[in-house]
């Protein structure tokens, strides 16, 4: 399959930080509506991979493709407008806005076809930004009671859920989740898994970085293992976990 057929693809992506090489000639293609997982040890380059795809980080060499076009040099903002959204390993929301306002700001961009103009923003009342999806998500994430408190006061779990809500409300084409389950209770994780299955699967491609591997089992239809900036295994959940290379370079670390 060539990059032109994949929704999102990277070719020979390389990035160095001094002696560290968190992306060493990575080739990866994500198909439409695919739900894929990426696992790997700490410092393997998983987050760096997301940074390269979202434009927070420019590769030393190699290219990033989206819908057949080369987006390697595009600004982060342009990539978002094309339909790539992500969450961060450290949940990133607007601490000084209340929970609904966070969601409203995220939704408004979608409402304005991805490109909110200054004039439009100026003339639109914030409380006027509402929709059934906002209500549904606020309800579904269990935010009904905290809707009007500042996001800075939320628990880590709630921040993560809020960030997720802000990402999926825009119905992106590709959703990149960086350790969405970290720091959450079992209950909260299964809530998020359900949310991803019901609301996102089949409508968008999802790429999930996780250390809590077993939670990916029912969720992903593909799993890759990244070690030292290189993809050492790629296949179904079972295949990836049983691949000899992955066992050698990743499981060894865990089993020891």
């Amino acid at each position: 399959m060539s990059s032109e057929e994949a929704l999102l693809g990277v070719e020979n992506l390389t990035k160095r930080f001094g002696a560290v090489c968190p992306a060493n000639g990575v080739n990866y293609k994500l198909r439409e509506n695919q739900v894929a997982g990426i696992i790997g040890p700490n410092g393997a380059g998983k987050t760096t991979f997301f940074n390269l795809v979202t434009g927070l980080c420019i590769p030393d060499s190699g290219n990033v493709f989206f819908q057949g076009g080369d987006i390697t040099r595009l600004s982060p903002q342009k990539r978002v407008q094309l339909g790539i959204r992500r969450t961060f390993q450290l949940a990133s929301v607007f601490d000084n806005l209340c929970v609904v306002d966070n969601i409203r700001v995220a939704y408004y961009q979608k409402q304005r076809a991805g490109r909110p103009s200054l004039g439009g923003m100026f003339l639109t009342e914030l409380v006027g930004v509402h929709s059934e999806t906002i209500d549904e998500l606020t309800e579904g994430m269990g935010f009904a009671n905290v809707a009007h408190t500042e996001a800075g006061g939320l628990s880590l779990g709630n921040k993560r859920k809020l960030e997720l809500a802000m990402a999926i409300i825009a119905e992106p084409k590709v959703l990149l989740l960086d350790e969405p389950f970290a720091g959450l209770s079992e209950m909260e994780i299964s809530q998020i898994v359900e949310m991803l299955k019901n609301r996102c699967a089949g409508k968008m491609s999802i790429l999930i970085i996780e250390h809590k591997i077993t939670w990916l089992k029912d969720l992903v239809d593909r799993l890759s293992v990244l070690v030292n900036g290189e993809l050492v295994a790629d296949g179904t959940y079972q295949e990836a976990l049983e691949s000899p290379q992955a066992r050698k370079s990743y499981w060894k670390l865990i089993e020891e």
Partner: protein
Amino acid sequence: MPRWLKRYGDILLVFGAVGLLRLALPVPFVIHAVIFAIYTMAFSFLIGRLGLVSFGQPVYLSIGAYGTGIYLARFGTNPYAGLFVGVVVGILFSLLIGSLLLRLTGDYFALANLALCAVGFFFFQKALVSVTNGDTGLWYLARMSSTPILNLRQPNNVFVLALILAVLVWLLMKYIDSSVYGAACLAVKGNETKLQLLGYDTFGVKWLAFVLANATAALAGALYAIYFGFVSPASMELVRAPEVIVAALLGGAGTLYGPLLGAFLYIAMQDLVSTHVLYWELFVGIMVVLIMMGDEKGITTWLKPIFRSGWQLVSRRPKITRTP
């Protein structure tokens, strides 16, 4: 209570009170304080809503003042036209400067503004001396023509105009607070990268805010220029940079009443203290330190509970008890 009264009742109250102050206090004081309040509101918006601290605000104030002053001294005589010119010059200047300085962040932005202020002072005092008369300044009070309504040759009318403009600026700030744009400004302050990654043009958001705030500062400068009838480089001396910061923080940055309160308190203290104390600046310095020990919301943080309990005292109705 009708809806408009609910929404704008507070502003009627506050500015009504300012209007009444005019009857009780010396005219020069209230005029000075109201114009200074406009200047402070603009800065408070920058720092409180956008998180941008600038140590060079006098330059934006003075650009407006010189726009008006040069027009009235060399080109026209109508003070309203002068006011208009001052604001337009302020807008153009902040459009240009914003496009350059907003690429800097945090402390660098604050210091670059300081440098800009120093450069501005040099220009108006030395480099453009043929236009600005250097330290002597431009004097045009006698040239200003009378207008049929709200004749600005009379200080009383300057007060009325300044009060009207202060209300309009206040309404603008209040409106922005309720708009998506206002939320975007706060979002820039809280987490600019995140806003970018939601597809927003954060530079545009900052640029517009910068221009709005500094054009408002220029408006204040233009009003000063008309009230005093002269302009000189003294208005952009670097030692004057902290005054608007102190006033904004005194009242509480990013709040709606804070800048008004801060401006009045500041000017009052300046008038009282500087007549008795030689080194008024020392006093300002100590105040800055004291304010910095509090937080961004300034004295309103401890005034609010006092007002609230005071209000409860006068509005107490015996039967209604509110459960928390």
